[in-house]
């Protein structure tokens, strides 16, 4: 079979980028265009009105960024703590039983997020957790945990078990083996899973809207601007893109280091 030529590869990358990455760049001029009336292709006036309106005192975006960050961090931490033992146990099960557990643990991904959110409200109200960050985190966990579990699975397997056993045979306690041998070996996959979990929580709209009461969460605050004020929407969208861009940046650095 023919290997792709250099020029062919470049053309493919350019074509793919034109469809899947470059359109996002429109957010930058859109965020900085104070006046951009049709049919002009370039803005009539550049400025920071969007930033000022989004982050004005009394506007919710600042609090929303903080809330979204806290919830995403908390949810991801809990998801990792739950998914780590579950994932290790899962890969040791015989294939058939593994499949059954797999389906059970991934089933929440099939349910509409707004349904999960509105369904949980009654319980969260009873527990006094409605309209709190903890309540929002709990609702996010339904989505975050399955994704984190899926992302963790590549870390587990015979290699990791063998490493742990070697450490134990060498006299390390269970905890020490985990800290010194197992965790560092699994670190890249754990980091990937954590970043994915963060982004999944960070992007939630429907669940936050359903259980959050009026608590400002970034995508919920950004949502109405998408129709009412495209400039403010673009500013908030750029903030929303920060964690995904960090993930992409780290991923390309890691794959460069691995020579991939």
């Amino acid at each position, binding site marked *: 079979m023919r290997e792709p030529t250099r020029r062919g590869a470049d053309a493919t990358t350019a074509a793919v980028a034109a469809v899947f990455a470059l359109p996002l760049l*429109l957010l930058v001029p859109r965020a900085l265009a104070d006046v951009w009336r049709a049919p002009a292709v370039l803005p009539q006036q550049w400025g920071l009105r969007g930033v000022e309106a989004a982050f004005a005192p009394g506007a919710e975006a600042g609090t929303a960024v903080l809330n979204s960050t806290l919830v995403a961090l908390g949810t991801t931490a809990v998801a990792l703590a739950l998914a780590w033992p579950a994932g290790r146990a899962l890969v040791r099960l015989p294939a058939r039983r593994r499949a059954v557990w797999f389906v059970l643990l991934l089933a929440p991904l099939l349910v509409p997020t707004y*349904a999960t959110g509105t369904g949980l409200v009654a319980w969260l109200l009873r527990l006094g957790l409605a309209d709190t960050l903890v309540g929002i985190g709990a609702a996010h966990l339904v989505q975050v*945990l399955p994704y984190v579990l899926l992302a963790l699975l590549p870390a587990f397997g015979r290699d990791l078990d063998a490493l742990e056993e070697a450490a134990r045979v060498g006299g390390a306690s269970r905890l020490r083996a985990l800290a010194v041998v197992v965790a560092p070996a699994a670190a890249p996959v754990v980091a990937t899973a954590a970043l994915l979990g963060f982004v999944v929580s960070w992007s939630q709209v429907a669940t936050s809207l359903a259980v959050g009461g009026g608590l400002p969460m970034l995508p919920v605050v950004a949502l109405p601007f998408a129709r009412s004020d495209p400039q403010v*929407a673009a500013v908030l969208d750029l903030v929303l893109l920060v964690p995904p861009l960090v993930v992409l940046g780290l991923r390309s650095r890691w794959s460069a280091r691995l020579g991939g």
Partner: protein
Amino acid sequence: MMAREPGGRPPDAPADAARGLRELLPLLPATTVLAVLFGGAVTGALSRTDAATWRAALGDPRFWPALGFTLRVTVLATVLSAVLAVGLAALVRRRPRAAAVVGVPVLVPHLVAATVAAAWLGPGGLADRLLGDLAVELVRDRAGVGIVLVTTWKEAPFLTLLVLTAWDEGVRRREEAAATLGAGRWDRFRHAAWPAVRTPLAVGSLVVGAFVLGSFEVPLVVGPTSPPMLATLALQQTRVASLEGTAVAAVTLLVATALALLPAVAAARWARRADA
């Protein structure tokens, strides 16, 4: 509900049961948390509904158009994403840099994707200005083209990554072997690659289909006001200032949930039968 091992217990049950339990113990925290939250969500929704709310929900003049619209958009976006994913995977599988770029939309929040689409393709959007006048309505159109476009832009890359994971070195070697035997491009794909990628593609498509069925922010930004998707209809229903509104919305969402789970249940049964 706990999964029980199919086929019953072997003869030396006690020792095996103890080992089985030890094996399953680490799975319990995650499963319990999901079961409580997920089960809580479903029972929470069910507890709000009774015969009267079901009648009210199914009698809502917006319900049936929303259901039809949701199913149409879901099938269209899912099929389009799956077909595109195979094509994209074939295109980028030996080009790691292009593959990395295809992965970009996977991490982009749906809300951002929808807003960007509106800025490009909406009335007065940049495409409109560059081309003079877009001949077709792509955003907030009644046919739901905007929702299909945004969803496909987000989900085709997700499925592409799944397909690429399965289209590995082993498959490549089989393709090469087939090529030396004189197999053409289509035959190589059909006999070497397709058997390897179809399962992850099918499982991924189930997840994508379920996601589109419940999609919320995408139709709110680029969808028509009427007909709504099921999830956005539920939002409209909760905005009625009465408790009945949330109960009717619960019914709408239960219908959406059932529709999302149905293909997965069918697929699981089918896989079991194929297995046996």
